[in-house]
C-alpha cells in the first residue's frame, strides 16, 4: 500500500495562488499550513494578511483571517490576541509592509511581548506595486525608485530587521531562514514550528524572517533568483536564531 509522504496540508485551501512562477511566497505559505497542521492549530488559528503581494493570502488558507491595512498587521493581531487569548494569532508580512510603513507596529508588538507570531517575507523589494525600493533592498540593487541602484550614501544600508529586534529584551524568538533551496526550506520549517510552538506554550512574541525571491521584479528567472539570493542576500542577511527564550528566562 502506498503511503503519501507529501501532500497539501489541511490548513491550506485548494485555490491556486496568484503569485508569479517561482515566487517563494508560495513555499512560505505551505510551511505555515504544514506547521498549523502538525501542531493541530487549524481551528484556533487566526491569520492577518498584509498589503503586498500576499494581500490575498487569506484565499490560500482554510482558517480564520483578517486583512490588515499596509503595515498594521501587528496592531491588528494585538487587538485580537489581547481579547481572544486562546487563539493562535500570526501576521504574514512583506518587507515593505513590515520594515517600512509598519516598523512601529512591529517593534512595539514585539517589545510589549504580544503573544503572536510574525511570518516575515523579505524579498528586498516592493513586489505588489511593481518593484520599488524597500528598506531591505541591497546596495546597488536596481529598482524603479532607485533606477541607478540603491546608493548607500543617500539611502542608507539595508535594514536587518531580525538583528534589530533581537536587541529587545522582551521577545521570545527571532530567527532568519531562507526558502530558495530545499535544504533551506527544511531548516526554515523547523524555525517556524518553534515559533508557533512557543506561542502555544504561552511565550511571547516570535518572528521568523524568510529570505524570499521576487523573480518578476528582480527581472530574473526563478533559478537566477535563487542564485542571486544566495550570492547577494545571504552574506548580508546571515541565517540563524537571533533570540531564543532560554537566553532570557
Amino acid at each position, binding site marked *: 500500500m502506498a503511503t503519501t509522504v507529501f501532500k497539501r496540508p489541511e490548513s491550506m485551501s485548494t485555490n491556486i495562488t*496568484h503569485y508569479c512562477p517561482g515566487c517563494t511566497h508560495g513555499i512560505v505559505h505551505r510551511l505555515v499550513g504544514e506547521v498549523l497542521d502538525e501542531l493541530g492549530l487549524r481551528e484556533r488559528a487566526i491569520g492577518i494578511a498584509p498589503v503586498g503581494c500576499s494581500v490575498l493570502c487569506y484565499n490560500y488558507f482554510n482558517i480564520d483571517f483578517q486583512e490588515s491595512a499596509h503595515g498594521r498587521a501587528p496592531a491588528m493581531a494585538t487587538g485580537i490576541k489581547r481579547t481572544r487569548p486562546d487563539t493562535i494569532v500570526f501576521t504574514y508580512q512583506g518587507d515593505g509592509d513590515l520594515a517600512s510603513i509598519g516598523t512601529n507596529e512591529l517593534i512595539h508588538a514585539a517589545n510589549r511581548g504580544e503573544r503572536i507570531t510574525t511570518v516575515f517575507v523579505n524579498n528586498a523589494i516592493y513586489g*505588489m506595486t511593481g518593484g520599488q525600493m524597500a528598506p531591505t533592498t541591497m546596495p546597488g540593487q536596481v529598482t524603479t525608485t532607485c533606477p541607478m541602484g540603491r546608493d548607500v550614501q543617500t539611502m542608507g544600508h539595508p535594514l536587518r530587521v531580525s538583528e534589530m529586534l533581537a536587541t529587545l529584551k522582551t521577545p521570545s524568538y527571532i530567527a532568519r531562514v531562507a526558502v530558495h533551496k530545499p535544504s533551506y526550506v527544511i531548516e526554515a520549517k523547523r524555525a517556524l514550528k518553534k515559533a508557533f510552538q512557543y506561542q502555544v506554550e504561552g511565550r511571547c512574541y516570535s518572528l521568523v524572517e524568510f529570505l524570499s525571491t521576487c523573480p518578476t521584479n528582480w527581472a530574473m528567472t526563478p533559478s537566477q533568483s535563487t542564485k542571486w539570493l544566495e550570492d547577494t542576500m545571504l552574506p548580508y542577511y546571515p541565517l540563524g536564531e537571533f533570540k531564543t527564550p532560554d537566553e532570557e528566562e
Partner: protein
Amino acid sequence: MQNEVVIAGFGGQGVLSAGQILAYSAMAEGFNVVWLPSYGPEMRGGTANCSVVVSDQPIASPIIPHPGAAIVMNNPSLERFGPAVKAGGIIIINTSLINIKCQRDDVTQINIGANQVAMDLGNGKAANMVILGAYVAATKAVSFDVLKATVREKFARKPQFEELNMRALDAGFELAGKQM
C-alpha cells in the same frame, strides 16, 4: 472620424506597447488620441489590455465599451472582447495562440498567426508588431508610413530590433491586406 481599438493578451505579449505605438503614430498625424491601459490587480501575471481612441475631434469619454476593433492575442482576450466589438467592426485574431472560434457574424474577422510569423522572422517577441501591421492594414486608423516611422524612431537605439520590427509590420500588413 473616430477609431477605437482594444488590444488584449497575456502580460508580456507587448499589447501595451503596441497600443502606445499606435497612439504615437496617431499623434504624429495630428489626431487627438487617448491610450488607456487596464491596470488590474497590483500584481504580476494574468492578462493585459489597453484601448486606443483616435479622433479628429476632442475625445470625450476615454471609456469605450464597444470599440470599433479588437486585437486579441489569446483565448481569454477573445472571450472577453469578441462580444464587445460593435456591429460592423473588426476583430483581429492571433491564431497562433487562439484555438476557439469567434461566434460573431456581424464583424469582419482577420486571422493572423502572429507568433508563428514573428518566429519565422527570427523572434517571437515581434508578434505584437505583426498584428499591429495587420490592424493598420484593416482599419487605416493611421497611415502605414507614419506607423513605420514611429517604430523606427522608437527602436532607433536598438538597430537589431528595428529591422526585425519593420519586417514584422510588413508581414502583418500584407497578410491582412490579402484577407480584406
